């Protein structure tokens, strides 16, 4: 399995793990949980484009 695939798996898992945190945080008005969920989801989303940019350099 290539390093790129491993990073994409991490990105996918991060996004999927973030979703319940985000949902529960929003439902319970728990700002901390919501922030962690949103940050994790964003990190998951950023991995693939960042990999693309670093590959070019």
């Amino acid at each position, binding site marked *: 399995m290539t390093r790129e695939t491993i990073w994409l798996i991490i990105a*996918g898992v991060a996004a999927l793990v973030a979703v319940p945190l985000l949902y529960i945080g929003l439902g319970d008005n728990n700002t901390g949980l919501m922030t962690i969920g949103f940050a994790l*989801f964003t990190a998951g989303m950023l991995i693939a484009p960042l990999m693309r940019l670093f590959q070019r350099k």
Partner: protein
Amino acid sequence: METHVSLTNWLVAFLPLLFLLVLMLARQWGAAEAGPVSWIGAVVVAWFFFDTPIDVIGYESVKGTWSAVTVLYVVWASILIYEVTHEGGAFEPLREGITRIMPDPLLQVLAFGWAFASFLQGVTGFGVPIAVCAPLLVGIGVRPLYAVIIPLIGHAWNNTFGTLAVAWLGLKQVTEMDATLAMQTALYAAIFIWVLNLLGGFLVCWLYDRWRGIRDGLPVIIVMSFLQGGLTLALSQWNDTLNGFIASTVAFIALFAIARMPRYRKAKPADSHIFVESVREGRGVDPEAAAKQDAALSGGTTSAPTMSLNQAFIPYYALLVVTFGVLLIAPIKNALGSFSFGVSFPATVTGLGFERTATTLSMAPMTHAGTFLLVAAIIGYLFFAGMGHMRKGSIGRILFHTVDKAIPSTIAVISLIAMSNIMAGSGSVHVLAEGVAAATGSGYGFLAPLVGGLGSFMTTSNLASNLLFGTFQLSTAEATGLLSAAILGAQTAGAAAGNMIAPGNVLLGTTTAGILGREGEVLKVTIPLFVMVALIIGVVVLLVA
């Protein structure tokens, strides 16, 4: 809900889509890389320009990911069934069997890229036709780029009434249309779909060999389109669930009869530009490519027992039996469908007053297309293993290749659906659609298929496009005094055509054809073809609406 529509906020609303288009088409990024950037673009636009609170953005991202999971279940399962067929070495006998029955190379391309792709769309949908047919076309020597483009065009017509008409049923539900309007809309939808179907046949032949391709393929186009489009039209007034399946199955079987016509019975030189050089020069698939193809089609099996065409079809026969066994036998369907789970979302409102009603997104896993594919893959594996076609370590290889192929699609699908949900929740989609309608007035009918296609491009789904734009199309038809049935028919036909440019579908094709990352090149061909098809349907809509 009143969201002011101006040129400025229309252009701002369009920004996330512009990012997606520029990155994929101009920068040649894959959907897995461009999708997340567009998601970030949608978040920024929603937050700064559409005054969307963070909880709305959060809920829409969760909603999008939940919807993506239900789509990804099918994506993963369809890649799994492909990997089982591939590991069992069934693509080679399947390819050999069909090429033996159909020695004419144009007929082979039409068989895999149009008839079989449409048949698979009639049964499963969700990108399976592209995932399966692209490698089959590569196996007969078609260049990978065309192997993706051809089934994208060929299967599009069956997106509305295929997959047991899930997209059509979605349109009926979201617009709450009465029986009369439903009958009229089905009729118009089927007429526009027939246009799409006919154009699909012509386009595949055109890609094959320009005018000579059309001339040589004309009898097939006429017969196939009469069966696919004509039956869809006839059945639209009888049974909307089995419509697409019956039409595509009858046409697929009929193709074997067409292959017996004198003009298609003899092998002809495969000199079309869509074939790899060695095939064009009559040397067959060249040794290096042949080794790759053998590995690609047979999963590296070297001394497996021979397999007949029927045996090679076992996973797909299993898929048919499982799908219809569950969906057509009411007690089984009801029993399995009773188990479901879902997530509830509260009503939301943006700072600009754009409202989204409370909703629950649920999933019945036992009657989900992903489960049918998964069960078919397991049955296929057991049969192939029983026949001695699976080597040691095959399960590990199947799972490894499934993960390897599915993971970029996973990122892409999550980001794209999350993006489209944020755009819908922030009012961006509303602004985009309202802007188009305001600019066109009663001429809107001409653009109605393009709006449907835009929905499919954003969501990779005819169903999702219908859910996204169905009510908007109905309101616009009423506001502009156009015939509602015709506009709704144009919505779903345009959305069906939009599947040829849907990044998720393109991604499945590039993944299984081995050209991952070249999605932009595929879109460079399919976007102009989609626009042409949508405009032709638009002219028809303009005449009847």
